């Protein structure tokens, strides 16, 4: 630790007399904090001497030292592992309690009540999901579609108009009609399937694929005059991240080779416009259901200012309470226990 006096003079780069510090003075102040062995020789060159120990200290002392370090390392990790496990358990209990306190009961009214007091809602919510590849393919896919339709229903109930779902492999892109069908069924389960239930309509799309939004039912002739809400679901995969930028570069390079553009024309605005059109704009909030933040190949261009939310040590996967906590976080609101 530096002496107060020295710390101040370093901070303002002047000594007690108010003159700028000379390098020698600085060195004197900091000498004892610096490693004892300055490395004047080039450290990267491999010395011809193959001895595993540096010649400075006797080998036996180094051996004992490294043994002690390994021992301490093992101890630290023993206790740290214990701490992490306790923390995970604690978080799991808290999450469980919240999950019981806040449950949607498949009722849009309850969800609407949960988000009623929020000062703002995201216009575009993005989630990262992962498909479980350990089991057989069918079960993992079914689980994924189930999660997607649940999240869609929550968004539709809360009034979030755009939802983008990132899944690394992009397996869902092959099953757009089926996904649409499942989502519609889930929405009907939430909202009811009567002409008066105002069940929201859904369109599912993926970048560079046509939008799938069949006219589910012919518009009801005069059902109260209010048209139902609409939710857009965008399916993303790893290809929509780096590869899209690479494709854009290829196109730009080709155009430059044919002298259609000059490289100076390439600006962040141009790229942004192209990427927004071909993939999507910036989402307002990115929701992870994983226990820690790892983007896993999520489109890099779009996460610039996106708020990234995750529940630390989340072990429950896709849960309504995570969704709700993210919305609270987005609105900078505190969660009150109980309703």
């Amino acid at each position, binding site marked *: 630790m530096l002496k107060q006096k020295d*710390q101040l003079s370093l901070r303002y780069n002047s000594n007690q007399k108010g003159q700028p510090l000379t390098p020698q003075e600085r060195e004197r102040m900091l000498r004892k904090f610096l490693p004892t062995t300055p490395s004047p020789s080039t*450290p990267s060159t491999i010395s011809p001497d193959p001895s595993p120990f540096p010649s400075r200290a006797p080998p036996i002392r180094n051996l004992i030292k490294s043994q002690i370090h390994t021992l301490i390392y093992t101890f630290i990790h023993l206790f740290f592992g214990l701490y992490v496990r306790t923390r995970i358990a604690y978080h799991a209990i808290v999450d469980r309690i919240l999950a019981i306190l806040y449950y949607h009961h498949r009722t849009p009214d309850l969800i609407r009540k949960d988000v009623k007091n929020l000062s703002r809602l995201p216009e575009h919510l993005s989630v990262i999901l992962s498909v479980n590849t350990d089991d057989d393919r069918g079960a993992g896919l079914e689980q994924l579609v189930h999660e997607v339709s649940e999240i869609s229903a929550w968004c539709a109930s809360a009034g979030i108009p755009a939802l983008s779902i990132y899944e690394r492999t992009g397996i869902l892109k092959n099953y757009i009609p089926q996904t649409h069908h499942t989502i519609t069924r889930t929405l009907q389960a939430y909202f009811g399937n009567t002409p008066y239930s105002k069940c929201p309509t859904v369109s599912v799309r993926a970048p560079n694929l046509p939008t799938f939004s069949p006219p589910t039912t012919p518009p009801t002739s005069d059902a109260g005059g209010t048209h139902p809400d609409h939710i857009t679901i965008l399916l993303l995969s790893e290809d929509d991240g780096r590869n899209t930028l690479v494709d854009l570069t290829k196109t730009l*390079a080709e155009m430059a080779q044919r002298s259609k553009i000059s490289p100076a024309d390439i600006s962040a605005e141009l790229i942004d416009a192209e990427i927004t059109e071909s993939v999507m704009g910036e989402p307002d909030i990115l929701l992870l259901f994983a226990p820690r933040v790892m983007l896993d190949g999520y489109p890099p261009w779009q996460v610039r200012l996106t708020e990234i939310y995750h529940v630390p040590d989340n072990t429950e996967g896709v849960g309504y309470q995570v969704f709700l906590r993210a919305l609270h976080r987005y609105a900078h609101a505190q969660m009150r226990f109980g309703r």
Partner: protein
Amino acid sequence: MPNSSSLHISNLRKWLVQSPPAEWALGNIKELLLASVRQGAVPQHVAFVMDGNRRFARSHQIETIEGHNLGFEALARILEVCYKIGVKVVTIYAFSIENFKRTKYEVDALMDMAKVKLSQLAQHGELLARYGAKMEFLGQRDMVRPDVLEAIDKAIKLTAKNGKAVLNICAPYTSRDEITTAIRNTVIDYSEPVRPTLKRPFSETHIARNIRAQQLSTVSESEENGQLDTTLAGALNQEGSMDSETMGIYNRVDDIVERYLTDLTINEAPASAPTDIIIECLRDTTLSEEEKRAKVDEALDGNVDASDFAELQSLADQMNSSHLDPTTSSTTSTTLNLSTSDPTSVSSSLHPTNFRDPESITARTLTAHTFTGLRTPPLDLLIRTSGVERLSDFMLWQCHQETEIIFLKCMWPEFDLWQFLPVLLEWQWRRRKEGQVDRKRGRSKIE
């Protein structure tokens, strides 16, 4: 006043910690801890978003620039920790392009501070030189004030020799700007013409002829099966039988042509092979001797010797005198001409420049053009302080895959070893667990 009292408490704590015995003990514990942490896996590349200096200053009721000063001290502490445990690259987000929108007073104060601090880091190289770290700046240099730029260049030069570790200072930087620059530079790279590859030891005419010979022989084989109608089969049979003879003539003409063409500049791809032109014109019975000679001269790009011309003439006669149908010969030679003058040579005669194929651009190409480049190890850990949970345009290209992103509640000036150590330990812990899982999976697969 809870804020000022917290500052008092921190002052009291500082005084306690600075008493000699406590200082000695703490220093030794720290050393021991760091040396122990080194025993496990250590992230190779760590990035920090140094956020919260201003908020810290506001909450402690000190000047904003004071907050930045404290932030720099925190940085020095953390750098020391990082380099001691063996981190190879530390990247810090020092100044965003967006930060130019702050008040001029603050920007100027920051720039002045940067000048002083840069020399403190690098001048007699205390921190950086002792740990063998070199300083690199990532960002738009032309947006920096010239006097600061001078200080930057000086710092870079002073530390350029160090090769053990790297400190990347991102200023003035945004990641979108970095990606844009990478794309632009890639495009510039690819829109520069490349020299065509040097002449390869294979002649296109040889290859074309070989292919034709093979096709003919296969066709005449299938003809023996009696699948083809007789007239066509007869014609092909004729060609097939004389094929080896024609090949001999072709090869000799080729030899003569090559004698003339060795000193020709190899860069210009000929529109069609000279051998074919020569044989074509020599066999053309409508042309006179002089016309033939002129054409041969033109094809060979120089005057042909009388003896060589005579040999060529005799070779052509030999070819004509052999039972070769003139019509088939002309068709085959035209097809040959077509096949030798492939589309690339046609386009290259239209556009005198050659470009690299844009399809060869990959994510790796773009990575190579980012500020961090290919030599920097992948980003293992990105830490952002001050509880804001977004990336704010930092390292987007580098961190969106395997990087573990950590958001911490504390402000940057409060960030020290005791905040950093849990993050580090957890990272190590996860690595160990993943390693165990992988090993288990591998074992079960073997079983």
